[in-house]
C-alpha cells in the first residue's frame, strides 16, 4: 500500500514491472502517472538502446526517470543530504561510463542504477571512519515539512524524534535488511518492485521484509510508542 502522500509527491515511475506474471497485485499500480507498466518498459528499453548508441539526450531521459529513486535510496541509507548528492552524482557518472556493458535481461535499468548506488554506499562505509548519523539539520527540516500530518507542535517534535530513533535503528540492521526496509517501507516500493531492485524473487522479499521488521523491533528501545 502506497501512502497517498508519497504518491502525490510526484515520484517518477520507480521500477517498471515486467509484463510477465508474478506481480504483486495489491501494489501493481505504477507510482507515476505515466503510461501503464508494459508500455513503460518498452519506452525504457528504447531509451537504453539509444543511450548505448551514444545519444546524450536518451541518457538524460533515463536520468530524469530514476534520479529521485536513486537519491532517496542513498539518502535513507547514509542519512546526509551532502553525501547523498555526492554518491548520486557518482552513481550516474559510473552508469554513463558503463552503459555499453549493461545487459538488458528483463531486469529493469532502475535496478541496475540501484545496484551501482549500493556498491558505492558500501565503499563509502568502508572508507569512512564512523557511521554517519542524522544531523540536527535534517531533523529540524523534517519537523518543518509542510506535508507532515500532525496534530500540533508537541506531536511534531515527538514524531520527528521518533523518526530519528527509527532511522538510527534501521542503520544498525545488516545491509540487506536495511536496503529492504528503505526500499519497501521508507520509499514505498511494492514487493515486486523491491524484488527487482534487489534482484531477488517475490518470495525472498516477503521473507526478508518479515525478518527485517522483526529485527528492527528488537532493536528499538523499550517503550517507543508507535
Amino acid at each position, binding site marked *: 500500500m502506497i501512502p497517498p502522500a*508519497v504518491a502525490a509527491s510526484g515520484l517518477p515511475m520507480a521500477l517498471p514491472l515486467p509484463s510477465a506474471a508474478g506481480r504483486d497485485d495489491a501494489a501493481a499500480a505504477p507510482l507515476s502517472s505515466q503510461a501503464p507498466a508494459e508500455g513503460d518498459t518498452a519506452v525504457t*528499453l528504447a531509451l537504453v538502446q539509444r543511450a548505448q*548508441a551514444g545519444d*546524450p539526450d536518451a*541518457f*538524460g531521459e533515463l536520468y530524469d526517470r530514476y534520479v529521485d529513486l536513486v537519491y532517496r535510496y542513498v539518502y535513507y541509507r547514509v542519512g546526509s543530504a551532502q553525501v547523498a548528492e555526492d554518491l548520486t552524482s557518482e552513481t550516474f*557518472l559510473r552508469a554513463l561510463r558503463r552503459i555499453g556493458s549493461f545487459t538488458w535481461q528483463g531486469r529493469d535499468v532502475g535496478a541496475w542504477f540501484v545496484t551501482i548506488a549500493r556498491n558505492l554506499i558500501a565503499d563509502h562505509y568502508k572508507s569512512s571512519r564512523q557511521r554517519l548519523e542524522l544531523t540536527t539539520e535534517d531533523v529540524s527540516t523534517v519537523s518543518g515539512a509542510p506535508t507532515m500530518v500532525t496534530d500540533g507542535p508537541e506531536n511534531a517534535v515527538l514524531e520527528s524524534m521518533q*523518526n530519528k530513533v*527509527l532511522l538510527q535503528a534501521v542503520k544498525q540492521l545488516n545491509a540487506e535488511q536495511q536496503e529492504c526496509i528503505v526500499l519497501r517501507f521508507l520509499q514505498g516500493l511494492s514487493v515486486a518492485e523491491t524484488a527487482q531492485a534487489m534482484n531477488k524473487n517475490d518470495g525472498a522479499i516477503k521473507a526478508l521484509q518479515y525478518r527485517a521488521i522483526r529485527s528492527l523491533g528488537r532493536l528499538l528501545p523499550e517503550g517507543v510508542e*508507535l
Partner: protein
Amino acid sequence: MTPLSDLLPPLPLLDRARVEDFARALDAPAPLRVRSAAPASAAPVALVGLARRLSLAGEQLAPAATPRPEFRDALRTRLVAVAAVQPHYAGAGRLSVVPAAPVPTRRGSRAATVAAGVTASLVALGGVATASSQSLPGDPFYGVKRTVEAVQLATADGDLEQGQRHLDFASTRLRELRGLTLGRDAFRGSRGSLDAGEAAGLAGAAVADPEVAELVRQTLADMDAETRKGTDLLTGVFLSSQAQAPLQVLSRFTSRQSTGLERLLPALPRPSQDRAIASLALVVEVAGETQDLMATESCKPVCQKTAPAPQVTPTPTPEPVVVQSPSAEPSAPALPQEPVLPDGNSEPVAPLEAPDPQPGTPAGTVPGPSPSPSPASAPPSPEPAPAPTTSSRAGQPLPLVPLFVQALGMTVADPVESLRSVLRGLS
C-alpha cells in the same frame, strides 16, 4: 560479504505462514497510523504497526529525501555534456564521438519525443546492430548486442516467433562460447571441425585466464536460460495448436546445438566442462521431449497404453522395423540405447515410436546430421502434456548419450562419468 539472510536457515513451515500473513496484512487497507498502544500479545499487529510507522516516516522525510532542484539540474547538465563527448559505438564498427547537441529540458511532450526518438533510432541503429553483432562477452559494448536482442524479443509477434528468437539467442551464445575459447575467427566462421589435438591445445590457453572462465560460465547459463524459454514457448504453441512447426524448429535446434556443444567440450577450460555437460544434458532432454511430442501427435489414440514387456517390443503393435533398424539410428528407442541403461530389463521406451505408422519416422522426424543427438530414450523430467505415454518412464534415469560416446559403442553405467573419461582421454 555474504548477506546475513543467506546464512540463516530457510524459514520452517510455521514461519512461512507468518511471512505470508505479514505480507497480506501489509497490503490490507488499514489506518496508516497506529495511534492506540498495540497490545503486547499480538506480535503480528506490532510488526504491521512498525511497518506502517516506517511508511509514515518515509512520507514525512520525503521532502528531505528529495534532491534539491539546483543539484538535480546541475547533475543532468553535466551528465549530458559528458555523454556527448564520450566515445561510443557507432555504425560500421567504428568508435566515434557525437558532437554535442542542444539539451531540451522541456518535459511537456516527453512521450511524443520518446516515440519519435524510437522510430528514428531504429533506423539509425541498423549500423550499430550489425557492428555489435560481432562482439563477444567481455567486450566493452557487448551489452549493446544484448539490448538489440531484447528489442527483437519485444517486437516478436506471438509465441512461435518469440520462441524461435530465444533459440536463436541460444545458438548465438554457443557461437560466443566458440569465440571465447577458440578465438574470434571461430566465432565469425560458420562451423569448423576441430580435431582433438587442436582443441586440447587451445583449451590449455583458455584455462589460464580466470576471467574467461567466468565469462564462459555466465554465457553457458545464459544459453541454458534461452534454451528453456524457447522450449517452453514452442512446446506451448504445439500443445495449444497441435501444429508441427514448433516441434520441427526445436528438433533442428537441438540437433545443431548438441553437435556444436559436443565439439566444443574438449576445448573448454577444465572447470567449465562440467557446467557444459549440464548444458548438453539440457539440450538432449529437450530433444527427447520433442521426439516424444512428435510421436504422440501421430499415434495419440494408441499411445495411452504402456507396454510392460522387458525389451522394446511394445504390446499393442510390434514394430520390428523400428526395433531392428541399424544402430546408427539413435532415435530408434531400441537396443542401441540399452547399454546406457543400468540393466537390460529396463522399461520399454518404444511405445511411442512403435505404433507409428511410418516405420522410418523416427529418423524422419529428427532432421539434421545422421547421428542424431536426440535419443528418444531420454525420459523428460518435466513432463509436458501427454502424460500417459511418459508414465512408463518415471523411474528411468536420464540416459545421456552424447554423440561420440554412442559412436564408440561404449557400454556404461553412468553416461556422465563415461563422458568425463572420454574427455580425460582427449586431454
